[in-house]
Each structure stands twice: as C-alpha cells, then as structure tokens.
C-alpha cells in the first residue's frame, strides 16, 4: 500500500498557512536531506530542478520527527493553529 493510500485514511483540516517552514538557504547546504526520509507522512521532497524543499504540510501528522532530525536545525516547526491539522479517530 502506498503512503498516499495510507494518508487517505487520515482526517485533516487544512490551513492556508504552513506550520513547517524550513530555511531553504540551509537546506541547499544540507547533505542528508533526512526530513525526506524520516517523515512518516512523506511531507518533504527535494525539488532538484528548482533546488528547493517542497513541503506538503497538509499531510503532516504532527509527530515532530523532522524537527529533531533536521541536520541544519533550520526548520521552524510549530503546531498547526488551534482548529487545524490532523484529527485522529483511532489513535
């Protein structure tokens, strides 16, 4: 089962603002790009063409793994606003 299929079972209330804001200047220098690996919701992907981290924050499960793993400590990580983000039904 693909990660997209897994995520389709999760209830989200999307915000128009991202609560995950990496400093792309630092991301450019980052070798591991480990956020693209450890995120359980595959939120991050590296856009090679535009040399930019793509952040699908709408899929975030709010675990915080990326914040701790971030090699450059360049991720401004917040909780989504009060009415937004994931709502687990089966947790």
């Amino acid at each position, binding site marked *: 089962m693909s990660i997209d299929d897994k995520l389709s079972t999760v209830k989200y209330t999307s915000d128009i603002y991202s609560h995950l804001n990496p400093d792309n200047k630092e991301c450019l220098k980052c070798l591991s790009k480990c956020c693209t690996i450890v995120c359980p919701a595959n939120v991050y992907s590296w856009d090679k063409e535009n040399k930019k981290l793509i952040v699908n924050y709408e899929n975030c499960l709010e675990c915080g793994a990326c914040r701790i793993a971030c090699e450059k400590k360049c991720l401004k990580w917040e909780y989504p606003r009060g009415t937004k983000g994931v709502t687990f*039904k089966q*947790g």
Partner: protein
Amino acid sequence: MNSENKTDVIVVGGGPAGIAAAITVARGGGKVVMIERGKFSGSKNMFGGAIYTQPTKEIFPDFVKTAPLERRNIEHKYAILAEDESTVVSYKSKKSEEYGSYTVIRSKFDRWMAEEAKKAGVYIVEETVVKELLLDGKKVVGVKTELEDYYADVVVLADGVNSLLAKSIGLREDIQTKDVALSVKEVIKLDREKINDRFNISDDEGCIYEIFGGPMLGMLGLGFMYTNKDSVSIGFGLTLNELVEKEIKPYEMLDKLKAHPTIAPLIKDGELLEYSAHLIPEGGYKKLPRLYSDGVLVVGDAAMLVNNLHWEGTNLAMTSGKLAGETILIALKEKDFSASMLSRYQKKLENSFVLKDLKTYKDLMDVMHDRKEDFLEYYLKKINSFFAMFVSVDSIPKRKKYIDFIKSIFTDRKFAELGKDAYNIIKLLWGIFK
C-alpha cells in the same frame, strides 16, 4: 494583570497526564483551566496501546464500568522474529483483572476522561494552541494562546513529547535523535469473530504482541500488536537515529513488519481504518528534563516519563499528573508557588514507581544503543536457530547437534564480544538489584 483571566492552575495539554493533574486539583477545590490544542482530548494522540487498570483506578475508580474500553488484555505474546522464522513466548491469564490493562481508542477514551474532568469542575478550552509562557522574571505566571493571555499561580506543562514550552524556559535541552523513537501504526478493521479466532480470545478479551526483530533486526526498535473490539493495531517504535542513519522510510518498515510470515496471517484481509504516527520519549532516567521551576511543573511525555522496556507510558503519565496535582493543592493552601515548594513533586515522583523504575533501567538505553547488533540481532536469530535445531528430525544424533550449536556460538563470535555481552547483562542486572 486582568483578573478575569486569572485562575489557580493552567494545564497545557489534555492527554492522560494533563487530565490527571487537572482533575486532582479540581477535586481538591482548586480552579483549573485545561487548554487542549486538538478539537477534543485524544484527537492529536496516538499510542500502541493499552491503559493500565490499577493506576487508572487511582484517578477514575469506576472506569471499568463507565469508560469506553475495547478489550481486557489476558495474553502477552513475546514474538522473536528472525527473517522468516519466529519463536513466540506467551503468558496467558484471566486472573490479572486488577493489575492488567485494557486496549482503548484514544479519541474515545481521552475524550471520556476529559468529560469526567469537566464534571469535576475543570474548565476546558479546546482547539487552542499555547504559543508561549508568560514570565515575571524567572517565574512562570501564565500562558499566551493564539487569542489571549491567561494567568495562573501554577502552570502544568502536559504538552507532550515535543514540549516546546519546557524547552522555551530552559527546563529541557534539544532532544537528540537517539533519545526518541518514531512510532507509526495502522489500525486495521477486522471482523470481531476473525479477531477472536486468530488470537484465540473471546469477545472482551485482548491479546498483545510484543515483537522483537523481524525487519528491525539489529536496530533499536520494537514492534507491537494490540486487539481492539473490531480492529487490530499494528506498529513499531524505532529510534529516530536508526531511521536517519539507515535511511529507512517508516511506512516501508511497517509494510515489511506486516508482511512477516508470523504476522501477515493475523491481519489478512483487514481494511486499513487509520494510519498514524507519534514520537516516544526514550532517553530514560539520564535524559529527564528539569521537572519543576518557579510556578511550573512538567508531567507525562513532556517530562519524558516512559518505561520503554515494559511498554508503559500512560500509567507514568497519569501518576505524574496526579502527583503534580497533589503538590499543587499543598501549594495553593500555603500560597507558595516557588520552585522549592514545587520541588515536592519531584520528591513524590522519586518515592513512587515512576522514577524508581526509570532509575532501575537507567543504563538500558546506553547498553542497547551500544549492543543492538548483538542483543537485537545475533541472539534473536540464535534463539530461532536453537529451536530450528531442536525440532528438526534429520537422523543426526542429538548430542552432536547440541555440541555443534554450542560450538557455533564460539565460532560466530569472538571471545571479547561474548565477554562484552556478559558484562552488559551483568551491568543491567546490577542496575536492577543493587
């Protein structure tokens, strides 16, 4: 200070620790506001998982009759998985009603606990994120939410494993990747009859699988399965540094675990109800943050109170919340909210199983990080190869097979490694009994 926005106690976070703290204060006559960022308590939470009967009863004496529970766990299975073989040790008993556990669905159970807190007089604010703590000098005097400021004599930080608030006032340092595990889980819908048949249990009985090895051989991680009424939860927790260093995508690891020949038949033809993820604090006793300061206490996951070897977390959360609540009631009576008054909370924790257990296992994580290829790969495989030898019928005399098996340990491993294994086992045992 706006007196309308002033209360005795603010609890940040409406999970088991926060609710236990809030309800303890409210029952003792204190005024409590509990602020939860989710739509309701439990909506941002995820665990294996089970709640534990005895510690839960200390806060909710009648919960067995009134709370939304799934199944009472009567069987614990320890599954030691090699690549495509397994050895399973099982303990089953229907007697342990008082000292056992129940599976629950957090969005139902935490919500129920929050309702009970409301009945006890706790004022609950939902869908609200606390952005920062309000300070007067070094003393915490309140919280700043997205909308307004609230003031209190004591603020309880029950804001979970990430506790940005504890970090903001220097109670904890940045967490290292080796001190947390990432857990991912799938809740899989299965007919009740199928669950009962496959796990050999009846309608209200539950079975827990605690899984070693399999796709996680050689890594510091463990898998789990829990039975709910009409679903099965399956997942694992793996230290974050393993995922980073070995470049493992967590959902791919979960698929491998689900596909293991010992696990796959148990969840066959199930339908995925929900996928989820959460961090588990795994640093243990040596990585505890400061638990109190002027006007503030830290409880539950925010205080990194998890006993990972025993899969315990919610009980440490509830007990720490209760002890924080009891401390606050004394502080309210004495009108003293200084760090020295609130240090009684740490004393209470030290005198309870919470810090005693963490202290017992204080060397566990160091040893496991250091010896994971040994204890979480070599010996797990060796246990399986022992049983493979024991059950195989191949006309080779048994005596020769035993001798070959024992010899293999000494040819597989250097003496120095065996010495280190023995040393570390003794070190862990010494930690328990000294």
